[in-house]
Structure formats: structure tokens, C-alpha cells
């Protein structure tokens, strides 16, 4: 068997960050390779380097023996690579059929009229992906799944030798997932080489021939889906090593007084269901972790609580409903969110960022709070005068948490604090959280995909999957009860 696509020693750096480090893979004709890894592992970067959307710093991307690394995207596309994007951004004034016709056109400035057979082929492709009934409609009138079908149709129209598929199942219902699996399977049957990029093995296990797992830009495991799921490193990446649930002194009223309760919250983003009938509660002084992969709905849940997105259902804070309150009112009521994107003021110094967080308190309170925070995060004291932008990723995260704490929250929401951080930094952060938990009576709601980080501190864990809560319980029971579902 000859490999249609061969990637050798691919490396991509963004500034100081090595996003992809010496990755090699090969896919044969009629084979589906799953490329998996948690958020920030570099799998999307690998895909972009193959497509030429990012230029690799080193390594080769060979298509049928020709090295195309560093070529412009359109030449790589013409060499026989197609991509199915996760986010469809269709043209507004063109019908579904016209979109497929577009994908069938040659790259010529002289095409003033398309051949008649182009239209017939476009119609055939529409029928194949199940768009035949909506062929003459405009994309904005289509449901979410049909927009994804359109992306697939465009890839089929190019008839590429190598197909790259980015998270094909995100946001789809079970029946739609089956449909898409069958369509992707048909690529294999026709002798295409398929690279399927996704977060976890479970979602793609039934479809793929082989799996390559990545973590922090590096190759961690390769083999059949079962082999990779059994792999020790993979298990550690996804589930964490041995989970130590650190006990802490019980407090009176802990978990009994419901500080925050979310009942039946649902959120729709356009046509995609981002949250579906979510109910959670957080007791006073509790540390609750919500674990779930990227796209499961964690950030949406937190934004709904903070009033940043509108949700149906009721969200109560100390028994009072938060519906109709502005994000600023909610923040003043004591719910402070430390967002995934950190939102630091990059050109301001560390101290200025902290002072901004302490605006609402008196000067003395603020000074006292800063002194306490410098004890919690000593590195910030050293970096006081430095512009926030120049801090390392880990330091920025600490600053973001510290700034949130300056607002003296009753409930601190931490959204994905470990995103893109190296393991050493995780440990520092983990220690700081533990100290926070042991020495204060703060209530914390933590959203994480990194289970190793999320479990040790948690009193209770929720697992969020495809916009739904699928498990709730004690962290100690997580590995045996919810672990396999999470791989």
C-alpha cells in the first residue's frame, strides 16, 4: 500500500510556543486516521500546516511523493487536498446549489459561463449528502446540520485525494452523527485518504482505522482506537494519574445552603444547541468542577450565569432569580468570572491590572487584598511593574485569577485556567488553588477539560458532554464511573 499523505518531522512554532513538535504520520488510500488530542494539543495546527493555511517551520508534507510544505493553500488544494471546515461561513446571496457549483469551478479568470454538466454534477453531489430538497434555498434559511452537509458537499466536489475533516460531529444530534459517519466512511470506500481531527477517541472510534494522539504538540500514542484508549500516557492526559481527592475540613452549612442554582437552562447559538436543559447547584463554600471537552458547553454555562448570554430556564443566586439582571449587576452581587481568554489589559502593568479589580473597595481594603494575593501568587509581586502582555501564559493566568479575587467574589468562576499551560505551571496553579480552598471560605466553580487539574480540588464534579450534564458525583468515583466515557 502506498501512502497518499506522508508528514515527516512537522514542527510549527508561534513565537516562543512550540505548537507542533516533530510530528510524523502517514495515511494510505482508503484509510481514515483519527488525530486526537485535548484543546491546545496542536492537532488543528497540524491540519492547517498540511493545508498550507499555516507554514510549518520544519518538516515535510508529502502528497504522492511531492513535498508541498510551505506551498500556498490554493496550490496544495489543487495538488489534491480538501478540507471540511468546522465553521461554515457560506455566501449570503448564493443558493446551496451555487455553493456546490463554486467548488466545482476551475481557478480561471476566463470562466464566464459554467458548463451544463457542472450543474448536473452539483445536483448529484447535493443528493449524495442529502441536500437535494434544499438545493435552491439560501444558506441562512438552513438548519445547522445542513450547513455542515454543505461543507462536506464542497469537499466532495473538489474530489481531493486527501480529505481533512475538522471536528465533524460537534453540535450534531445522534442521528446526524450517524449520517455524517456514513458520508465520511464513503470517502474511504472511494479510496481517499482521510484525516479526522477530534477531541477524543470515543467519538471517532467506530469510524477510524488508526488513531494518533497528541498532547502539547507532541506525539503520544498511535495505533487502533482500542490500543490508544488503553495507552497509559493517553489515560493520564485525559483522566489524570492517580486522582487524589484532598480532603478538607468540613464546614458548617457546606453544600447545604444553595448559593447558586441553575434549573433547566438552555442556550441556542443560532441553530446550534449550546446548552440543553442544564441543572446544577453550588452550595456555599463548595468547590465544584464542571469537566467537559472543548465545545461541550462549559463557557456557555458560565456566560449564562454571568448574564453574558441569554438562557431559558432559571438561574438563582441566594434564592433570587438573576433573570433580567445586567452582567455588571451580577458581578456586583458577588459572582465573578475569570474567563478562558483572561481578558487582561495587556499594556497595563500587573499592579494596574490588580488595582482595576479593586476599584470598588476602599484603598485600605484593596491594599490588604493585594498583600494577601501576593502571598498566594509570589511571582506577581516580582512582576508588579511589568506590562501584563509580557508575562508568560502561566503568569497571565495567575494575574487573571488574582484580579478576579480583588473583586472579593462570593463565587469565583474559573473557566479553563489551564488552557495552553505547561505541566510545571499547572502544578503551581494547582497549589495556589488548594491554598485558596484551605484558607478561605470562597465558593469556586471551575470549568476544565483537564481532569487531572479539576478533580483533586473538587468537592463535587459535573460532567458536561454535548451541551448536557451526563454525570454528577464525587471525584473519587469519577475514574470508574465516568472515565471511559471521557476518553
Amino acid at each position, binding site marked *: 500500500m502506498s501512502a497518499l499523505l506522508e508528514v515527516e518531522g512537522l514542527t510549527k512554532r508561534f513565537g516562543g510556543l512550540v505548537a507542533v513538535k516533530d510530528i510524523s504520520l502517514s495515511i494510505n488510500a482508503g484509510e481514515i486516521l483519527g488525530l486526537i488530542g485535548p484543546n491546545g494539543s496542536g492537532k488543528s495546527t497540524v491540519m492547517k500546516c498540511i*493545508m498550507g493555511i499555516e507554514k510549518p517551520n520544519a518538516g515535510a508534507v508529502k502528497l504522492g511523493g511531492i513535498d508541498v510544505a510551505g506551498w500556498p493553500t*490554493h496550490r496544495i488544494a489543487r495538488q489534491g487536498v480538501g478540507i471540511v471546515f468546522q465553521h461554515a*461561513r457560506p455566501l449570503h446571496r448564493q443558493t446551496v446549489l451555487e455553493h456546490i457549483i463554486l467548488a466545482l469551478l476551475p481557478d*480561471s479568470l476566463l*470562466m464566464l459561463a459554467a458548463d451544463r454538466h457542472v450543474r448536473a454534477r452539483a445536483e448529484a453531489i447535493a443528493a449524495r449528502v442529502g441536500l437535494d430538497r434544499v438545493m435552491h434555498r439560501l444558506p441562512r434559511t438552513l438548519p445547522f446540520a445542513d450547513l455542515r452537509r454543505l461543507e462536506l458537499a464542497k469537499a466532495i466536489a473538489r474530489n481531493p485525494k486527501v480529505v481533512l475533516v475538522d471536528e465533524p460531529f460537534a453540535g450534531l444530534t445522534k442521528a446526524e452523527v450517524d449520517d455524517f459517519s456514513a458520508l465520511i466512511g464513503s470517502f474511504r470506500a472511494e479510496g481517499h485518504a482521510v484525516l479526522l481531527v477530534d477531541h477524543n477517541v470515543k467519538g471517532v472510534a467506530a469510524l477510524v482505522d488508526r488513531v494518533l494522539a497528541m498532547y502539547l504538540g507532541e506525539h503520544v500514542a498511535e495505533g487502533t482506537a482500542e490500543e490508544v484508549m488503553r495507552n497509559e500516557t493517553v489515560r493520564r492526559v485525559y483522566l489524570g494519574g492517580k486522582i487524589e481527592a484532598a480532603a478538607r475540613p468540613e464546614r458548617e452549612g457546606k453544600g447545604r445552603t444553595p448559593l447558586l442554582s441553575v434549573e433547566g437552562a438552555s442556550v441556542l447559538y443560532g441553530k446550534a444547541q449550546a446548552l440543553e436543559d442544564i441543572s446544577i447547584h453550588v452550595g456555599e463554600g463548595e468547590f465544584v468542577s464542571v469537566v467537559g471537552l472543548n465545545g461541550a458547553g462549559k463557557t456557555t454555562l458560565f456566560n449564562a450565569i454571568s448574564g453574558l448570554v441569554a438562557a431559558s430556564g432559571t438561574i438563582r443566586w441566594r434564592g433570587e432569580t438573576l433573570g433580567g439582571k445586567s452582567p455588571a449587576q451580577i458581578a456586583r452581587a458577588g459572582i465573578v468570572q475569570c474567563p478562558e481568554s483572561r481578558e487582561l489589559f495587556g499594556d497595563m502593568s500587573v499592579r494596574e491590572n490588580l488595582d482595576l479589580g479593586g476599584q470598588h473597595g476602599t484603598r485600605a481594603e484593596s491594599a490588604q487584598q493585594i498583600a494577601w494575593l501576593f502571598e498566594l501568587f509570589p511571582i506577581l509581586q516580582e512582576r508588579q511593574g511589568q506590562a501584563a502582555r509580557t508575562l508568560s501564559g502561566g503568569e497571565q493566568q495567575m494575574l487573571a485569577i488574582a484580579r478576579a479575587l480583588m473583586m472579593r467574589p462570593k463565587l469565583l468562576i474559573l473557566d479553563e485556567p489551564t488552557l495552553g499551560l505547561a505541566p510545571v505551571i499547572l502544578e503551581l496553579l494547582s497549589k495556589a488553588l488548594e491554598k485558596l480552598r484551605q484558607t478561605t471560605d470562597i465558593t469556586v466553580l471551575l470549568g476544565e477539560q483537564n481532569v487531572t487539574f479539576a478533580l483533586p480540588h473538587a468537592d463535587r464534579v459535573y460532567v458536561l458532554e454535548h451541551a448536557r450534564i451526563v454525570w454528577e458525583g464525587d471525584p473519587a468515583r469519577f475514574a470508574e464511573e465516568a472515565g471511559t466515557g471521557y476518553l
Partner: protein
Amino acid sequence: MRTARLLPVALVVLLVMALLPFGVGGYVLGLLTLAYYYGVFAMAWDLLFGFAGEVNFGPSFLVGLGAYAAALLNHYYSWPIWACLVAGSAAAVVGGVVLAVPALRLHGPYFGLVTLVAVLLLQNVIVLFAGVTGGEIGLDIPDVLSISDRVNYWYALGFMVISGAVLFGLARSPVGLILQASGQDAVEASALGFNVAKHKLAAFCISAFFSGLAGAMLIFYLGTASVGTVVDIGVGVQVIIAAVLGGRRTILGGAIGAIFLIVAGEMLRDLGQLSTFVVSAIALVVILFFPGGLLGSLLRTEGRQ
């Protein structure tokens, strides 16, 4: 389908426009003649903004290049009009390419800024070399297209109709589809195998050609080339307002917008200085509440399914 339904309407409107010289006076004809040239500027601009997705803040750079190339050749070397028109459009295309090749490498607002600076540069050069170019006062043109109002009107109308047909046809062709895809999502278009830079550059050349040709024809109508009529930033702003007002991504909307702007400005002439203010306010309201523009909103309701 939508086009088919609008076609009879368009034909009737065109017929009325063609017969207009038999019904109205020279003053109105003169006004419309000017409006038709502006219509071409606006349609050429929409090909870039609506389809290639690039905001050209300096449409008058291309217009001015065409106009002044033609003016200089006619004034100093007495080239015949047709040769001046050819040279004018060629100058606009060459100037456009020189500007676009480096500018299209930039992303976002920077392309627009480069085009804006280009207008200021051209304006400065013309004023600096006033001895040759006539500077602020302008350069008189010995030849004219025609001394008859009616003939001038028909020239302008014919030119606008042909330019509109070519640009509209192009926008509706497969090439226009690729251009629109490139403008809306360059990454996705290139992943489909299209050389985005090539298509955008071609669009820029076509836009430059029509802008330059219209600019050159305009000065042979006016009998003079001056900064105020073909180069000034204000001219470019009028063109942009006309195109957006008429409807983005419609091509023909540009012509409608230009006619509307100039006719409305004239009807409100009694208001004196205030008329510009009122027209601008109307334009602002349309842009704010009907971002699709006059024609855009019409097509949208027509095409709703």
C-alpha cells in the same frame, strides 16, 4: 430567477431614460450626464467592495489617473479623443496594479488606508506640478465629446449601460462567484483551490479600467480636468456613498445610488448649503436602517423563500 423578473422593469426604465432628451431641458440632461458617469464610478467600486471584499477608499485615485492622463495627452499632444480614452484607461489600470500588488498583501483596514493615501499623493503631485497640470485651477481640454447636450447625454447613458452590463454580467458569472468567495472567506476560497490574490488583482484591474475610462470621458464632457471634479477625496466619498446607498453586491445599485445622490442634491438646491447636509442625512439613514441599500433591500424581499 430574480433577474428575469426585474428584466422587463429595467428595460422600461432604460427606454424612458433613452427618450428623456426629447422631454426635458438641457439643464436636467447635464445633471443626469454627470450622474451617469458617477454611476460607473460607483459600479466599478462595488465590484471591489461588494465582491472582492476590499474597501477602496480612493476610487478617485483611479478616476483621476484616467482623467489626467487623457487630459494631458489631449492638451499638450493633441491626441485624438479615442486615443486619449485608451491611454486614460490604461493609465488607471497600470496605476491600479502598482498600487494593488503591494496593498493586497495587507489585511483588514490597511488596504483601505493605502488607497486613501494614494489619492492624497496624486492630489499633491497635481498641485505641485501646477505648471504642467494646471494645478488647482485645472487643465482645459481642447476637444469635447460633443457640443450637443443630447448627444453628450446619450454618450453617458450608453457608456453607463454597457459598463453596467459588463460589470453585472461579470459579477453573476462563475468568476464573480469565485471573487465573492475570495472576498468573504479567503482561507476557505484558497482551500477550494482558488488563487485569491489573482482574482482580487483581476477585480482591481477591471475596476480601475472602468473608473479610468469613465474619468477620461467625464473630462471630455466637462471640457476641463480639475482636482475638485475628478481627484478630490470628496469625489471618492460621493462615489462610496452612492454605491453603498444603492446596495452592496448589486453592481447596478451603484448607478441608482449615484443618480439618486445627484438628483436629490439638485432638488434640494433651494436649501442652499443645507442641501448637502440633507442628502448626507438621508444617505446615513438608508445605510443605518437598510444596510443592503436601495436595490439590496428590494432584491432581498424579492428573493425571500
